């Protein structure tokens, strides 16, 4: 009962897009040696390919979006026909990217993560 009361008005939503790529998963890459086929064999096909001044760039995208809210008015649904709403919500959208630049022979020229993963808690409704 206490547990139910503590959870009252809680809402947790999570959207996970693609698998997370870590530095350990790509440390096999050797600049000037690793080909696009070796890369695809190990971590799959990129989500996007575009051209830059430095060569073709393969982009791997992933994200882990977390949203939590707490509605202080939810408990009144048990007693009142009308439930006022007082909700605190926090949503964290964290798109992350691995960028791999290829030379004209399709070997890796450079690579890097555009953002580092932050280990934010899944439940964090405080918006301030």
């Amino acid at each position, binding site marked *: 009962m206490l547990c139910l009361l503590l959870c009252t008005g809680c809402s*947790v939503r999570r959207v996970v897009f693609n698998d997370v790529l870590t530095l350990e998963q790509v440390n096999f890459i050797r600049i000037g040696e690793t080909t696009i086929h070796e890369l*695809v064999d190990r971590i799959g096909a990129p989500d996007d390919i575009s051209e830059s001044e430095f060569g073709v760039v393969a982009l791997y995208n992933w994200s882990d979006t977390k949203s939590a809210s707490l509605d202080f008015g939810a408990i009144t649904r048990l007693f009142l026909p009308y439930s006022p709403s007082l909700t605190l919500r926090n949503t964290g959208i964290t798109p992350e990217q691995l960028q791999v630049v290829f030379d004209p022979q399709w070997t890796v020229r450079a690579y890097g993560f555009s953002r580092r993963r932050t280990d934010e808690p899944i439940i964090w409704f405080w918006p301030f």
Partner: protein
Amino acid sequence: MIFFKLLGALTVVMMLAFAQGCVVARGTIGEPLQEDAVSAIKKGTTTMTEVISLVGAPDRIVRGNDREIFHYYYYDGKSPGVLLLLLNWMRMDIKSDNLYVFFNRNGIAEEVVYGKRTGRTQFRLWPFGD
């Protein structure tokens, strides 16, 4: 006999009662890529026209390293949820398949890059953990 019918009816009612607030959603973008069509693309022989007849028109055409690149993609998302009176939680799992066909200046397939992730998309309800 009547006992079993009543038991069956009660079971159905109980299942419906427990399913209240359940949400199962699925969303896709594009068409799934056919593995046999992808494997039919042969490097050095298959032409651009043949690729289009095998896989269809590309979703995107990119230029890179002075080559035309056909990009085909497919996204699959699965989302179960529980929306109860006092609390609710929901999770969505989205993954993508991507196919790239690189053509040389003569319009012949030079490289084929294919990755399939959607086979690992799951209906996962619990929002915590990996």
